[in-house]
């Protein structure tokens, strides 16, 4: 079931990437959205994180959140958003 779901999501992703002259932001948002969906499905069900205790959830979540936020900041300082 879940596998099927993942397969379909991947197919949709690739289809989106190929839609000619699709708006760039829409593409980005769409693909990232689907990526996150797949990600959570694997982590939640395949890895049973949905069913595990809070400690494990938190350990992983901290890693994820930190990874995401830190690198947004790093990239921002480079891309000139912060460098003005």
């Amino acid at each position, binding site marked *: 079931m879940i596998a099927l779901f993942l397969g379909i999501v991947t197919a949709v992703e690739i289809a989106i990437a190929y839609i000619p002259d699709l708006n760039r932001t829409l593409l980005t948002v769409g693909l990232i959205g689907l990526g996150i969906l797949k990600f959570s499905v*694997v982590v939640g069900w395949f890895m049973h994180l949905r069913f595990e205790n809070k400690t494990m959830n938190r350990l992983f979540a901290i890693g994820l959140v930190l990874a995401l936020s830190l690198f947004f900041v790093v990239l921002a300082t480079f891309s000139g958003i912060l460098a003005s």
Partner: protein
Amino acid sequence: MSTETAVHGPVGTDGADIRKTAMWAFLGSECLFFGSFIATFLLYSDETNGGPGTELFDIPFTSVSSFVLLMSSLTMVLAHNAYEREDGRQMRIWLMATALLGTVFLGGQVFEFTTFYAEGLRMDISPFGSAFFVLTGFHGAHVAIGVIMLTSMVIMSRRGNLHAHRGMNVELVGLYWHFVDIVWIVIFTVVYLLQV
């Protein structure tokens, strides 16, 4: 469970399996490992130094190998189910299947790397090349280690060193395997599909 042996039991005082807690801690740490490489890649995605860039990517091909890796997560789940049913034979079959799918994925990566090298995208040609090969290479190394662990698991199970009640280790390898899979989901989306 007597208190005397609790020190070594896998179940901690919080009722959770201590090995799984450790594994999740490790995976949390790995998020930052790959995160840093992905950040490096994003930073350098335009730094092609006059060499080839993302236009070399063969999305259909990589989609297929991504799909292979995704499916290996499924076989891993099946192996885990077999272990929970204490069905050693089935478990070994699915473990082998998972390892096989992992190997296919690696084969695809080797093929992709050779093609890129032939077309002039090398890791010493541009920061883009460096970031691409090192990121996907480290992911590949993780897959390879996963394959080794899966194979070891099969061997140990054959030798009877993987007792049904110690089958927890299948679950741990599974966690690792799924993690490597989701890292690929991220890489595939960010590196290949978005082509930032």
